[in-house]
């Protein structure tokens, strides 16, 4: 399976900003954050097209999101995931004494997701990763 | 609320001619009365103690965006000095810029009951009032800064005094302000592009007006509006060697503004404007020249801006001056320019005994207080926190009252400064009566606060009782006892309630916010759609949202004045 070493950035998008106003549990919201914007050339290298699922892994976790062709290229080697519960599974929690976790510039690996691993819905993701004791 | 009777204290009430007589003071329903009529009565035995009106501070930076930026800038200042929550008080931190609750408690512990925030950017008035609401124990007010507002510069440049007056009147009400503040008039607008004005005749770029014209124009406006306080001026060229000339010119330029011999201008923190010399090497005191002038005139009042050798934080609206201070000290620096109106700068600063310049600055403040003969013309302040935090007032009191105390310190400061200082030749020592003028009566009178600063019938029952016996203690020699007494009041009474006892807060109370409401016969600023349109062009906020509603003040106390326009 082809895979790429990339730098992961997370951040705001207009869709995510609007989506959250419709409710964090709305489909509109979680569909806007369970995505990854990838440079078109990188997509070719991975052998994927828009809408395919990709798995992103960092030292801190693994998550499956939907690939979107980035219109903001070229930015080969950098992928962008909007803020949200999906990004939070893989960001670096270390604050280095500042209080701020590392939400940008994280080393990651990205590859097409195997067919058994789909993009979870929000309730599914919360259930998978969080347990109320 | 029970009536209160303060028995047998040595009362100092200069505004009513009382000078240390043993007297009883009667209080009922928050006011000083002839006789009490309430059923419940509490008696305070003030035998052997000094009784004065509660302290009034005419100029102290305690609330607002600049003060808060200072708090933010200096967590290290707070780490050393904090107060835990008690069942009567909120927690907080000091030191040079205390948090709001702590500010109120610390003033009250020293017997102060009224404090004026002297620098309110009109656009951010809401912020100032929110902090004042959270400052307990004291009555307060704030001065909107007007010396660089476009709505002031434009009409004054065309000689349209009445239009300017209409704007100022509107601003007083819109910002719930008390007095007109000018800071480096004209200089702050120039600072918008990184420039400054060099003297009071240097025109302000793009505005075709000089500082002299701004000062004179606003002085006239102040008289037309009959505001209770005069214009309150931080002079151009503050902090620059040789600036005593600018200070004199500033005072001279409104000499003939005529007010029946009553003051028309207040030059604040005069120490910073009394520098002689052409650079830091030839720096010396200009206090003598300033004092000479003030002694022969009746139109000026001043306050000291006294330096204490300690670590503190400078914060003024004088952006260009603060930038220079940053360059001198290489300390961290915050600058904040406010659109259409003013600016601000903050730089931590340490005054050192060993520094020639700092030591002379220390001397200058005291020289002014000792050489200006009439105590009604110069008041005790530190321009908190610029020259020192207000918690050092007791120290300054001891310097005013004791030559020995001054000379002790004079021996320890930078030798060259010590030689140049005039303090060695100045014998004068403040009496308790003069001290009462310098720390309460004079300030209240200059502010036009008729119910403050005195203990006559009808005054607000704001009283400080200090545990020092004027018949037994010689302040000149026993200055340490005086310092101790004024550091922790035996009693502070606010609005007729005992709020501090033996330097501890025993009851937390709020306080009133004073503001002035000039009544115009023709309020052209509000009425004109053209002016409202200009407002939208000049500001990034809507006209309606700029105004601070009266109910935003926790306890609003408007003072109406009838204007001549």
């Amino acid at each position, binding site marked *: 399976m082809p895979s790429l070493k990339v730098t992961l950035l997370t951040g705001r998008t207009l869709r995510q*900003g609007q989506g959250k*106003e419709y409710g964090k549990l709305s489909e509109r919201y979680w569909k806007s954050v369970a995505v990854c914007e990838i440079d078109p050339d990188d997509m070719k290298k991975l052998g994927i097209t828009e809408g395919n699922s990709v798995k992103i892994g960092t030292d801190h976790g693994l998550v499956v999101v939907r690939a979107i062709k980035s219109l903001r290229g070229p930015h080969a080697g*950098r992928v962008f995931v909007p803020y949200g519960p999906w990004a939070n599974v893989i960001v670096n929690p270390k604050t280095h004494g500042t209080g701020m976790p590392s939400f*940008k510039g994280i080393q990651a690996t990205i590859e097409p997701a195997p067919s058994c691993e789909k993009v979870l819905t929000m309730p599914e993701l*919360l259930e998978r990763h969080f347990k*109320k004791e | 609320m029970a009536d209160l009777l303060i028995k047998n204290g040595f009362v100092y009430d200069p505004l009513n001619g009382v000078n240390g007589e043993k007297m009883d003071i009667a209080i009922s329903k928050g006011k000083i009365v002839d006789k009490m009529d309430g059923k419940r009565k509490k008696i305070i035995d003030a035998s052997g103690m000094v009784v004065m009106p509660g302290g009034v501070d005419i100029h102290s930076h305690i609330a607002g965006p600049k003060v808060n930026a200072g708090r933010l800038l200096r967590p290290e200042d707070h780490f050393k000095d904090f107060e835990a929550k008690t069942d009567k008080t909120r927690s907080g*931190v000091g030191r040079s810029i205390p948090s709001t609750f702590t500010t109120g408690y610390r003033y009250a512990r020293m017997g102060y009951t009224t404090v004026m925030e002297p620098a309110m950017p009109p656009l951010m008035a*809401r912020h100032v009032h929110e902090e004042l609401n959270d400052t307990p124990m004291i009555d307060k007010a704030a001065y909107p800064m007007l010396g660089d507002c476009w709505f002031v510069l434009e009409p004054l440049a065309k000689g349209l005094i009445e239009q300017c007056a209409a704007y100022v009147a509107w601003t007083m009400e819109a910002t719930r302000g008390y007095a007109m503040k000018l800071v480096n008039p004209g200089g702050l607008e120039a600072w918008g*592009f990184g420039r400054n004005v060099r003297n009071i005749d240097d025109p302000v770029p793009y505005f075709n007006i000089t500082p002299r014209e701004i000062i004179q124009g606003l002085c006239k406006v102040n008289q037309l509006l009959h505001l209770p306080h005069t214009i309150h001026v931080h002079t151009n060229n503050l902090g620059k060697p040789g600036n005593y000339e600018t200070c004199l010119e500033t005072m001279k330029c409104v000499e003939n503004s005529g007010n029946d011999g009553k003051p028309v201008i207040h030059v604040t923190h005069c120490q910073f404007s009394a520098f002689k010399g052409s650079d830091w090497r030839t720096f010396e005191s200009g206090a003598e020249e300033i004092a000479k002038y003030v002694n022969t005139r009746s139109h000026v009042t001043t306050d000291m801006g006294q330096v204490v050798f300690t670590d503190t934080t400078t914060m003024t609206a004088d952006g260009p001056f603060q930038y220079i201070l940053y360059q001198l000290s290489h300390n961290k620096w915050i600058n904040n320019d406010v659109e*259409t109106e003013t600016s601000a700068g903050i730089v931590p600063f340490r005054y050192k005994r060993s520094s020639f310049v700092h030591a002379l600055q220390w001397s200058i403040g005291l020289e002014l207080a000792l050489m200006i003969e009439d105590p009604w013309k110069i008041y005790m302040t530190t321009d908190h926190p610029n020259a020192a935090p207000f918690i050092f007032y007791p120290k300054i009191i001891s310097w005013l009252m004791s030559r020995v105390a001054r000379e002790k310190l004079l021996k320890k400061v930078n030798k060259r400064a010590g030689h140049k200082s005039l303090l060695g030749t100045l014998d004068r020592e403040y009496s308790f009566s003069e001290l009462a003028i310098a720390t309460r009566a004079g300030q209240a009178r200059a502010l036009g606060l008729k119910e403050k600063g005195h203990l006559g019938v009808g005054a607000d029952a704001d009283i400080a009782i200090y545990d020092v016996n004027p018949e037994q203690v010689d302040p000149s020699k026993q200055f340490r006892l005086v310092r101790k007494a004024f550091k922790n009041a035996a009693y502070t009474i606010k609005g007729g309630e005992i709020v501090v006892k033996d330097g501890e807060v025993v009851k937390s109370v709020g306080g009133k916010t004073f503001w002035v409401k000039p009544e115009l016969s023709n309020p052209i600023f509000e009425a004109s759609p053209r002016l409202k349109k200009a407002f939208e062009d000049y500001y990034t906020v809507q006209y309606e949202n700029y105004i601070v509603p009266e109910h935003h003040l926790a306890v609003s106390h408007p003072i109406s004045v009838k204007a001549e326009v």
Partner: protein
Amino acid sequence: MKVVSNVTCPGCGCLCDDLEIEVENNTVKAVRNACGMGESKFLGYSLHRPQKPLIRKKGELVEASLSEAIRKSAEILANSSYPILYGWSNTSCEATSVGVELAEEIGGIIDNTSTVCHGPSVLSIQDVGFSTCTLGQVRHRADLIIYWASNPWSAHPRHLERYTNFTEGRFRSSAWNKYLDGLGSYRAERRRQRAAKLVGEIHGVSVETPPVEEPSKRLPHSLFEKGRKMIVVDVRRTRTADIADYFLQVEPNKDYEIFQALRILLQDGELEVDSVGGVPAEILEDLADLLAGCEFGVLFFGVGLTMSEGKLRNIEAGISLVRDLNQFTKFVIMPMRGHYNVTGANIVSTWQTGYPFAVDFSHGYPRYNPGETSVVDVLSRDESDAALIVASDPVANFPKGASQNLIKNPLIVVDTGTSATSMFADVVLPSAVSGIEVEGTAYRMDRVPLPLKKVVQPPKAVYSDEQLLKRILREVRRIKKNMGGGDSQWLTC
């Protein structure tokens, strides 16, 4: 039908206060002057909102009375040793004020969203200060506007039209016409190329599209002309970059080096490398000249700087650059604050406690040490034992490990809508929306205070954050009194 004007938008840090809201039958029907985000908020706030308090019983959230929910919340907080009170950026200052009082009463930590946003900017300011101004100064005076690691198009949509490039100022004209001209010629060029291609196809001739231009080794001359200019510096070409006069693409995690390189150049130093952060040295030289030669420059920066490697040091470098520039010209710097009242949360916290966020009251007085007292760290180390979340959704924002330690302990959520966090709460208190159903005060990104308006009535029995917190505080005090604690003195460990 009525129109409420001069409404302050409780959206982003722009805090636009010129909105007009059409209201009919206590419902918002239309919104004028707002951007997409603001409009979504006014039109969408009433969807998906809980209106009844909820308490977790036997593992499920069930409806409860307000008194019960308040009592349960107060019990949780009064009995905790090290509770966290977090959020605050999406509510009024009045609510935050009660929050501080509550945190002080229970000896907890009060922290706001700066801690995961511009907290490092605050830390840098505490180290070196900063030169800044209110947005009107930019509007009137700025001729060089730089957005660094910030994308207002997405996060602050009206920023350019209200405060920067596309506004009219006293001393500067809007660059809108220039932008339209530029856009016009760009579109004209594209149409010409398409036409040429079509003509070529018709005549069976292959028309070569003009070769792609080599990226220039120097800054375009047009940047040095008079008038407003906007530059975007970012790791990828954002929408804002598309409309900038110049886009500088930089490598991730290299901002610190670039700032310092510019500082060296300003002091007449020389760069001993060919490029810094992916930017050729010649371009940096030109940029240094441009910065020093403008009449009024402003650097807006986003969380791209606070979140990448170096964090606060990145901002310190930026602040120091701007400070150095003041030797040559007027230059200011400003963080692009995200939530509409995160600035207000910092400001209220600072005046009441001395510190802007991460304030720990466990010793009875305010303590501040980000890294120790900041919530992500406290949660990552699993030190807290309860939490009150107000107007925020940490489960959607915090790294997973921190969120897990948040939800496993007693959790109270006060919010206007359902969130990922509220799904794991033990008590949910629905609240009215500040700025739409509740009035109050908020502070813009440039620290200008503005009033929040009440445009519609909240639903029956849905109260403001401020009112709910006051009730919880009263109940906490009652519980503690009955516990015989009196003035509870903190366990100083």
